[in-house]
């Protein structure tokens, strides 16, 4: 019997972050909601056997998202030629909007790496474990995604 109280406490503590991560992954408000509902439903059904519910849910989010992109492509295509930035004097808001727009142009795996590394603040090892890929692939994918986002990678990169 699932411990509903414990599950409720988990969702209340982490639901917002997971929902936002789902929206970043999908690039869409409503699809993000569907994605987080799918992941949390899976978590609830396996609650008693899961030791690390947050890691489990992140993995479920990413897996469900990548599976759904294999079935259908939402019309987002990674572009080789990046569109021009709106203006040289972009405000912070515009810059954020531009980044989010560029983020939506990344491939699903690239986007997943960026979200896990820079939004969920996972290490390269944890990101590799969540995505089921080698650490080296995480590094190369992250580097490629950052160049597409035109982000200057800091010294030492993310943690």
């Amino acid at each position, binding site marked *: 019997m699932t411990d*509903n109280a414990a599950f409720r406490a988990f969702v209340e503590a982490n639901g917002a972050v997971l929902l936002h991560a789902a929206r970043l992954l999908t690039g869409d408000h409503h699809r993000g909601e569907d994605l987080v509902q799918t992941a949390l*439903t899976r978590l*609830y059904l396996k609650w008693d056997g899961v030791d690390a519910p947050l890691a489990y849910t992140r993995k479920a989010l990413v897996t469900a998202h990548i599976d759904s992109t294999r079935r259908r492509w939402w019309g987002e295509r990674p572009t080789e030629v990046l569109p021009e930035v709106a203006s040289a004097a972009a405000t912070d808001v515009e*810059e954020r909007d531009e980044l989010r727009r560029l983020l939506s142009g990344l491939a699903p795996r690239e986007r997943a790496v960026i979200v896990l590394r820079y939004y969920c603040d996972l290490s390269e090892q944890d990101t590799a474990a969540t995505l089921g890929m080698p650490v080296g692939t995480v590094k190369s994918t992250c580097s490629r995604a950052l160049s597409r986002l035109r982000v200057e990678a800091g010294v030492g990169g993310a943690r």
Partner: protein
Amino acid sequence: MSPSEFQLRAALRDGEGDGVDPDRIISSALRLQLRRHDRRVRVLAVAAVIVVISGGAVGIAALNGSTRESGGAASAQSRTAAAGAAAGGADSGGAIPKASSPSSESVGASGGAVVPSSPLPGVTCPKTPVSYELPGGGGTNQFGADGPLFAEPVAAIAVCSYPLGAASPTPLTGTAATALARKLELEGSSSPRSGPYCAGQVRGELLSFTSDGTQLRPVEITGTCTRVELTNGSAVRYVSLDLFTQAGVKFIPAGLTPGKVSGSPKR
């Protein structure tokens, strides 16, 4: 100027805030669990039905196989046994199409069928020999043609030769009976053999018995003096008349007018 990682993080966090309703998740999960349970029950029910039907089919096939082996009478609809006597009829258990009770089976004026000195007392020849209507006219291509002529080991044989005469039945017991049965079973060909022309038809019926006296399915004997066809209603064998002659069984072919064949095998 390219955005920094700090700016990237800030951009990613922008818009964060909406929570998730845990009760909605729980009710959704319970509905999914119920659907999966219903689907599992349906799959198990269908699987159980398939197992039952398969088991029944296997059982029926096994039952048909065992009844076929006991006398070749797997399908009573496909053949009729025109027995000389009234009793019996072919039932699906491979039963003998007629009884061999002396009271109903005595031969008429042409001669006594009961041979007082016969080692098979009480065995009589029917007035007319058995005649099987085989599916498709019979022959080597019919289903079961390669089956056994005798369902069980034979201990005694009585050969009735038609027209019935003083020599019918010719009784064989012991090694003579088993040897003839083995030869007919094994040396008989399942396809017709050609042979020299012989004007004369043989007609007979072979009655066989197990060691406990159980009578097996009668074997119809038809043919010419060189090529004889034996059948128990499904199995078919072609042998030379010599096999019978060597065993001491005499057939008097009918219609011995040279160049003429009296009638034809009933098919």
